[in-house]
């Protein structure tokens, strides 16, 4: 199974090619091609994972020479190790469910086959990214993922907001990509290879100086910042919610944004080797976690709240990975997995709600629980999971992260994590109570449960959101042991003090309780906190004016500069061209004026010639004067 892992990304690619070729004829039945391909990929991935998971299994590595220049060889190939075996399963599974779900959600859309071809292409690129054994290949798929994101966010391209969001997503992530590219190039310069194994060997042999490691680590992290929507490049992710909701679930919750986290996880030995780089990762992650959570508190758009919670949760993962400890590594990747399940679940459920009520404003909903029992239930499960309530999946992973942070002694970051957990619980249940309980804002609408193709994937995800946590409980950390069995210092004790989980749970419950008071029972008015501090509310509601700041500080000056360059182009470059052209034109005009067909002009000019000739001959030879 492991030796045929290369088939996993190729199956969606085949689906993509088929859909591009025949999508027009297939119409809505093109969904089956996508579903079948991802199903096959999922089965393969599961087989690969199980084989790798079995006791005594080795990593599998295959590569062929792609380019040779000088004594440098660039390989192409694939690799199966613990981390990417797990990622393969997550990606194919979520992708499969999204494929199934989209069949219901996108029903009736004119560009249905196109949507499926994009989905397949995206699945292919993400799987290719995960399976790559070297940084160059990662980078290729990394960009491909970005392109797919652009295509899918801009799927409703006839909406100006969607167009703007797609452009924003592409451009903002590009900023990060430049960092990543420089990082990869520097790494190749220092080490002479793109292969992960060569890089890590070089790290152990001390081939790189510590400042070089820090520099490369930070540059690669910049790439991850762009892709994973970390501060300060987080602005594209909430805007990217303009895409269809299944896309938000697939790309902007479960998989693509996880690519940044995955990258940091893959390069984990690099961060272990550099304290500064890992601290940067940790602080950015921690700040993003609380920053995005505080924005999420006040947003009204159901998808935007989820988007900010994604940013916040990704911050959590970065925080864990930034600890540079084995426990942190396990916690980060573990949270990556659980988050993929419950965030995909939340997005799909949100999509189901939007599908039913045709609005995204949570205060225009309400009382939906009675009408949409399945959606309501799975949404509640997702909320409980993300809030970190025992025994849901989010509880285990979040508790691991907090424990890892605490064990490293970063008490400030630990406090940040706890507060962010409180925020998370509050805004998620604010969302839940506003949407599903209370009175319906508009009773005239006919609201009904979504079809089976949409509810079944949600139920499957809901089950995983409940049970996935048990794969790595503090008492029996199966996943953790397995993930780190080849790592140095794997035996490091990583059980956190028990009181941490108590505190985390209490804090989350407090958040839920507050949300219930304000939005469920409505005994505390919604403005109770906002009104004494209106500027605080505005600050959060307007996302700390980051967009406005970027617009004024970066976009406008660049635009002015661009206009200046346009002026240069129009007046100086074009001016020169026009000058040359005009000169030639005038020359032609002058020539044409001579050729006016007037015999007398010709005669005059001919005679002038004679006179000049005679003058030249006579004076030149001294016959006269």
């Amino acid at each position: 199974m492991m030796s045929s892992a290369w088939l996993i990304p190729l199956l969606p690619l085949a689906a993509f090619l088929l859909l591009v070729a025949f999508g027009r004829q297939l119409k809505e039945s093109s969904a089956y091609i996508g579903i079948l391909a991802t199903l096959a990929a999922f089965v393969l991935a599961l087989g690969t994972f199980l084989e790798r998971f079995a006791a005594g299994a080795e990593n599998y590595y295959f590569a062929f020479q792609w380019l040779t220049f000088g004594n440098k060889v660039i390989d192409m190939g694939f690799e199966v190790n613990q981390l990417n075996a797990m990622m393969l399963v997550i990606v194919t599974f979520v992708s499969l469910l999204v494929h199934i779900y989209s069949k219901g959600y996108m029903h009736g859309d004119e560009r249905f086959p196109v949507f499926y071809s994009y989905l397949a292409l995206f699945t292919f690129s993400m799987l290719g990214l995960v399976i790559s054994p070297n940084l160059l290949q990662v980078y290729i798929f990394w960009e491909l993922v970005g392109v797919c994101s652009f295509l899918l966010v801009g799927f409703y391209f006839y909406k100006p907001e969607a167009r703007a969001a797609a452009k924003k997503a592409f451009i903002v992530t590009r900023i990060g990509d430049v960092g990543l590219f420089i990082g990869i190039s520097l790494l190749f310069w220092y080490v002479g290879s793109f292969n992960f194994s060569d890089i890590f060997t070089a790290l152990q042999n001390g081939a790189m100086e510590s400042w070089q490691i820090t520099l490369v680590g930070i540059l690669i992290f910049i790439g991850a910042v762009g892709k994973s929507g970390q501060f300060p490049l987080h602005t594209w992710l909430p805007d990217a919610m303009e895409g269809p909701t299944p896309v938000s679930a697939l790309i902007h919750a479960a998989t693509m944004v996880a690519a940044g986290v995955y990258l940091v996880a893959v390069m984990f030995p690099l961060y272990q080797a550099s304290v500064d780089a890992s601290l940067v990762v940790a602080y950015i992650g921690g700040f993003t976690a609380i920053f995005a959570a505080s924005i999420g508190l006040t947003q009204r758009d159901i998808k935007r709240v989820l988007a900010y919670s994604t940013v916040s949760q990704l911050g959590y993962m970065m925080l864990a990975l930034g600890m540079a400890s084995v426990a942190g590594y396990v916690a980060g990747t573990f949270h990556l997995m659980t988050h993929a399940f419950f965030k995909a679940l939340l997005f799909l459920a949100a999509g189901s709600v939007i599908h039913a009520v045709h609005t995204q404003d949570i205060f225009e909903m309400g009382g939906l629980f009675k009408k949409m029992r399945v959606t309501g239930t799975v949404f509640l499960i997702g909320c409980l999971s993300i809030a970190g309530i025992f025994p849901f999946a989010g509880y285990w992973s979040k508790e691991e992260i907090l424990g890892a942070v605490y064990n490293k002694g970063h008490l400030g970051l630990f406090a940040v994590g706890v507060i962010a957990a409180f925020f998370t619980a509050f805004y998620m249940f604010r969302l839940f109570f506003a949407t599903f309980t209370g009175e319906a804002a508009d009773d005239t609408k006919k609201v009904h449960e979504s079809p089976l193709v949409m509810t079944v994937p949600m139920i499957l995800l809901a089950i995983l959101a409940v049970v996935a946590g048990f794969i790595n409980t503090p008492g029996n950390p199966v996943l953790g042991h397995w993930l780190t069995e080849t790592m140095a210092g794997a035996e490091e004790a990583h059980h956190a003090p028990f009181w941490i989980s108590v505190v985390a749970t209490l804090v989350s419950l407090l958040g839920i309780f507050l949300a219930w008071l304000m939005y469920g029972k409505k005994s505390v008015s919604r403005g109770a906190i906002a009104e004494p501090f209106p500027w605080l509310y505005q600050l959060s509601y307007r996302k700390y004016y980051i967009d406005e700041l970027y617009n004024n500080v970066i976009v406008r000056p660049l635009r002015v500069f661009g206009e200046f360059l346009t002026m240069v182009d129009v007046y100086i470059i074009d001016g020169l061209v026009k000058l040359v052209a005009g000169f030639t034109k005038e020359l032609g005009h002058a020539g044409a004026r001579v050729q006016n067909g007037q015999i007398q002009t010709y005669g005059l000019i001919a005679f002038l010639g004679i006179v000049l000739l005679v003058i030249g001959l006579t004076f030149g030879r001294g016959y006269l004067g």
Partner: protein
Amino acid sequence: MSGQFVAFFILSLLTIGGAVFMISLQKVVHQVVALAFSFLSIAGLYVMLEAEFVAVTQVLVYAGSISILMLFGIMLTRHDAHEDTGRGKFKFLAFIVVAAFFVLVFMGIQTMNIEGTPANFSQQNNVLEIGKLMFSQYVIPFEIMSVLLLVALVGAIILAKREADDK
């Protein structure tokens, strides 16, 4: 000052005056008449140069036939009296070029130095001598000239003839 000089002076004055009037007059018929004066005085200059036969030919051909031909040409076509407008720059340029040519050739004439004694044609019968030369030494150019005249005759008739389908 001998009578020859006076005659030359008057004749050349008439010649140049006729030419200048030809240029400056407005009506076409007046211009032709002015030119006829010029042609006649040129015949006088020929007489002074002891070329009586040429002078007679000049009177017959130029002052007679060509002037009359021109008058016919004028009568057969329509002439608006309006004169050239908007060609001042062109005229100025033409004047400059012609003046330059004049100065050049004038300088050539001034510096010219021809050795040799002037011929004395008054001793012989001018017409007789020309006839002799024309029919002996220059008989072939003479014959060719007759062919040329024939060709010009035919050509002029064909050109000026109204075409058959032209109403």
